């Protein structure tokens, strides 16, 4: 029922935005603009084209980083899930990457890769990759063995088994990791813009915070969240499209 879920979304949205508006109006905090003020700022930015310019800058490292992390991340994750040796060797690296406070490493990155696109792509990858790798490897290890056996008996090559059995069977969990990875990538892109060189949306956020233009700051944050959510929904659509049978629906 598309209409019901749509209705629920609207309803819960209205509730949360209402609460935001209310909190903004009561003035508990000077730094919290109301929902409507923020939306107006967003509207202004859209009309002036500022937001598009900003995203033109932000999306580049984001897209490159997310693309790299998804493919390499799933690749490494599958490998880690399949090979005990490789697991032993590299998973500590990803655990470290996952746990490392990235902000502290940014100076190092700047030393190594300068202040341009490469560093930013790196930040996005460092953020996005570990969760993709770790989740993928768990899912791969848990692939039902009887289906794997079936594929082997029908002469599936190693590659067939991976591409046609393991990945589809693991896809629900891989996608859960992918979603987190992608959203971490969004965070990484903004972090890179805040910490390395302020460009794009990160620049709007930091500059408007500096100048206490809080509606613009929240508008920028809102827009990136919106974008991320849209992207994640797209990801879910892709998952459902490719692995429809995996979706048995809800239990109750």
């Amino acid at each position, binding site marked *: 029922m598309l209409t019901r879920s749509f209705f629920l979304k609207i309803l819960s949205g209205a509730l949360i935005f209402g609460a935001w508006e209310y909190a903004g109006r009561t003035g508990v905090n000077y730094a919290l603009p109301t929902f409507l003020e923020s939306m107006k700022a967003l509207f202004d930015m859209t009309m002036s084209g500022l937001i598009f310019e900003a995203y033109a800058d932000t999306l580049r490292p984001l897209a490159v980083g997310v693309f790299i992390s998804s493919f390499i991340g799933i690749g490494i994750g599958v490998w880690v899930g399949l090979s005990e040796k490789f697991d032993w060797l590299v998973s500590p690296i990803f655990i470290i990457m996952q746990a490392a406070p990235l902000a502290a490493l940014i100076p190092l990155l700047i030393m190594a890769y300068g*202040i341009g696109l490469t560093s930013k792509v790196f930040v996005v990858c460092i953020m996005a990759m570990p969760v993709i790798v770790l989740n993928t490897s768990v899912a791969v290890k848990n692939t039902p063995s009887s289906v794997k056996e079936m594929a082997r008996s029908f002469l599936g090559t190693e590659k067939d088994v991976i591409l046609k059995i393991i990945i589809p069977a693991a896809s629900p969990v891989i996608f859960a990791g992918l979603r987190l990875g992608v959203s971490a990538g969004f965070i990484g892109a903004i972090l890179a813009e805040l910490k390395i060189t302020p460009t794009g949306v990160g620049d709007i956020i930091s*500059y408007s915070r500096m100048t*206490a233009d809080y509606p613009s700051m929240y508008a920028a944050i809102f827009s990136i969240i919106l974008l991320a959510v849209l992207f994640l929904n797209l990801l879910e659509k892709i998952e459902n499209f490719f692995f429809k049978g995996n979706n048995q629906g809800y239990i109750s």
Partner: protein
Amino acid sequence: YADKIRIALAETPSDELAAFFVALDRAKANGLDYEWTAFADEELAIQSILSGQMDIGFGTPYSAMQKSKAPIRIIFQLSKLKFFPVTTYDYNKLEDLNGEPILLHSRGGGTDSIANVIEDKLNMKFGDRSYISGSSNRVAALLAGQAKATIIDLSNKNKITASHGDQFHALPMFDVDASDEALFANLDWIKSNSADVDIFVKALLSVYRDMAKDPTMIRKETNPDGPIGELPEEVLSELDGFYADAVAGGLYDINGGGELAANADMEWYHKAGQLTGDFGDLDINDFWYLKPLQDAN
């Protein structure tokens, strides 16, 4: 009986805050009860004052004061905007940087405003501005060859010219009297806690004056069990040098800024674009609350 006053620091306690903590200890001896919280950056400290979660903050909240219309006032200038253009030997004066890329702290921040004022005064224009927060990070970028010119603070300038004087030098700069860090609070709170504020301001003034005579008193008077005393030996051993440089470089105003600083600030931050509107319309009383300082002097 007053509650503990809650102080919002804009950075973690380190050598630059040693004098401040010495003053706090003196104030405590005079009956001021306090607790402090270190925030990630100035904006958060400002926000915490705006929202009333903290009492006294650390920073230069000019645009916040103008924009939010909250009754926030500065009561003491803690340090001046003493920043220095440091470049490779490719450049010998500020004008040489015309059209050249430069590395700054953050857009709209202190070094950015310095760059704006330099452009304004010398009628020039920097090239691309890149931003890396933290003077030490900019030094690292400089050393790594990622940039040729930047603006950094006094202690980092001294360090790099001492260690890599063959590669980098500081360009001559005009004097700046505007504030880098100042103490501010909500006006209502100041008025209702005037006794505490007075103790605090007096303690700060006394430390600044003693320090001007003998910079090593900071190290001597630092409480070994306090937040500064706990710093690693590597940092503590640099305290004397830091304060000697700072006093020599005029980083601290022994009168706590006051009207002089207020006017310098308004002019500076207006020029730098953080204060908007007509300069003639700016009113010192919208930004500073001078009474505690006047009383203390």
